[in-house]
């Protein structure tokens, strides 16, 4: 959050920034989270070119083969290399997770702050709509929206983003309500700060941490939601891979002992989600000036 007071910003810009990174990296779990997220991002970008296999080329000779020297993660029911598909699926899954959560925060954050800060009719209308949306289970809502918008990865991300927005509306509204009662908000009004400045400099910095942590948790849910939408044919369109789609197909073969088709994308989801969660916790601490 940039501080509008040049007086302080000019002189001190260097200090808080290095302090922020220092704090983030000193925190061991945050460092691990950052590494995991960074690693998966890197794999999503350069990964597909590291393996000699085409992630969508089928082969009748290598159907459902267990991991071997040639195919480290085995092959799937159409004979495609699982490693190649996990690596190129990273792109779809990470994008789906991050973009849909960004959409959710972009919709939910401002609405929640407006509802909490201004109260009255604004709050009533926003809150009632939120409750109506929350009455539908997250996944059902995402599926319904996805089918209305049409089958594509982009539409799936939009659908997941909209479906997750009520969670952020509720959270930001609650946080805003509690910060609003602090004397410093009244003090800000007492010096004559306009509402937009009070929101930007007093409300948002003080509600940022829980929203950030919630966002990292929802990234995990969004990746899984994308998997479900893909499974229903509403997300990533076959034959292009995504972890979720691989997981849903692979799980049919687990009982026959062909575990590799679902375990590897599952492990990838697990570590990505873990990485985001650890990073979220670390960011929360690093952004709090009270934590040394």
């Amino acid at each position, binding site marked *: 959050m940039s501080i509008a007071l*040049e007086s302080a910003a000019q002189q001190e810009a260097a200090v808080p920034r290095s302090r922020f990174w220092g704090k983030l990296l000193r925190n061991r779990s945050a460092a691990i989270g950052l590494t995991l997220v960074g690693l998966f991002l890197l794999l999503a970008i350069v990964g597909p070119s590291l393996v000699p296999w085409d992630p969508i080329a089928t082969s009748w000779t290598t159907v459902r083969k267990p991991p071997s020297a040639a195919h480290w993660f085995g092959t799937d029911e159409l004979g495609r290399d699982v490693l190649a598909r996990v690596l190129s699926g990273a792109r779809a899954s990470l994008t789906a997770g991050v973009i849909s959560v960004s959409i959710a925060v972009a919709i939910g954050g401002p609405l929640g702050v407006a509802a909490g800060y201004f109260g009255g009719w604004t709050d009533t209308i926003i809150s009632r709509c939120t409750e109506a949306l929350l009455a539908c289970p997250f996944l059902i809502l995402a599926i319904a929206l996805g089918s209305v918008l049409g089958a594509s990865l982009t539409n799936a991300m939009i659908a997941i983003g909209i479906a997750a927005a009520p969670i952020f509306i509720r959270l930001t509204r609650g946080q805003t309500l509690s910060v609003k009662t*602090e004397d410093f908000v009244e003090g800000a009004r007492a*010096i*004559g700060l306009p509402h937009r*400045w009070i929101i930007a400099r007093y409300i948002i910095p*003080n509600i940022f941490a829980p929203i950030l942590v919630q966002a990292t948790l929802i990234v995990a849910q969004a990746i899984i939601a994308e998997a479900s939408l893909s499974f229903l044919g509403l997300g990533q369109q076959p034959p292009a891979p995504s972890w979720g789609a691989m997981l849903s197909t692979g799980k049919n073969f687990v009982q026959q002992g062909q575990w590799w088709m679902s375990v590897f994308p599952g492990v990838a989801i697990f570590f990505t989600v873990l990485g985001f969660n650890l990073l979220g916790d670390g960011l929360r601490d690093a952004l709090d*000036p009270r934590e040394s």
Partner: protein
Amino acid sequence: MSTILEATDLTKHFRSGGGLFHKPTIVRAVDGVSFAVRTGETLAIVGESGCGKSTVGRLALRLLEATSGSVKFEGKDLASMDEDALRGLRREMQMVFQDPFSSLNPRMTLGDIVGEPLWLHGMGSARERRERTRELLSIVGLRPEHAQRYPHEFSGGQRQRIGIARALASNPRLVIGDEPVSALDVSIQAQVINLLEDLKDRFSLTLVIIAHDLAVIRHMSDRVIVMYLGKIVETAPTAALYAEPLHPYTRALLAAIPLPAPGLRAERKLLEGDIPSPANPPSGCRFHTRCPFAQARCREEEPALRDAGGREVACHFYETLPRADAERAVAIPESAAKRRRMALYREHRDRQESDAAAAAPAATAGRALEPSA
């Protein structure tokens, strides 16, 4: 002396509860309060918790919208102003809050906290503002280097100094302190009070101090307004009020001050019962349920604020009440336990003195000058 702030018939009702099938409760936090603040004076507003004194402070700055009544700052009506005009006026009137732990934004550095009013009102260049911020910090007794630190690194007293520096930044003429020291340790209270008094002289401020601690008020204020259940019961110059409180409620408040003298005890009648709910105030005089002198008329007729020779009081019978000396002390008989404690204390002190004399004979000359028991 000119009037800087004038409140006329100020009323604030809060609605609470209420729904589709039942009426909301109306809490009459402030009910028809009128007062004037003279330029350069220190005016105190006192009363129990819930008497509406903090609400009056917020209404005076239009941090709350009044239900009815008006507030004029140097003749300009606050209620009729739009946001922009009000913002300009907010330079002139500032507030110091009670809780120093909640009144500073934990995410802003001291430099930003204190410098923000300067920035908002476009006072000076960035460089001048930085200079002024550092100057303000040193004026309130903090080090200018602290500008880069965050509020959590400071103690309650220091934080209150930061709050004062912020309030002073825009060069206000009126500062309202909402219990500015009641959240602080007693030892720190004195420092902050002295600071406020120094600043008042240095910047020719007008102060309105809202408090429940009468000792603090006596020390620093020129005039006192006593409030009870949303109404003013007495207004008087400080010295006159403490010498002879007229309203029975004021008497009770003064009688509750402990007397710092061993063996003496103030002759007092303490108030009984709790303050009634402002949602359902008593009929007639609001104080009659707790007043030791209440009569039939008090239950029926609400007393107006009457002139009482340079002061005002809202009581039907203040002229006929027995005279009250706030600090008439009576000696209480010395108990056996107290005699034993005093004997132990003297013995201990004598032993210390003889030890000191043995250790450093040269010092005894100095010691001898001290008054002995």
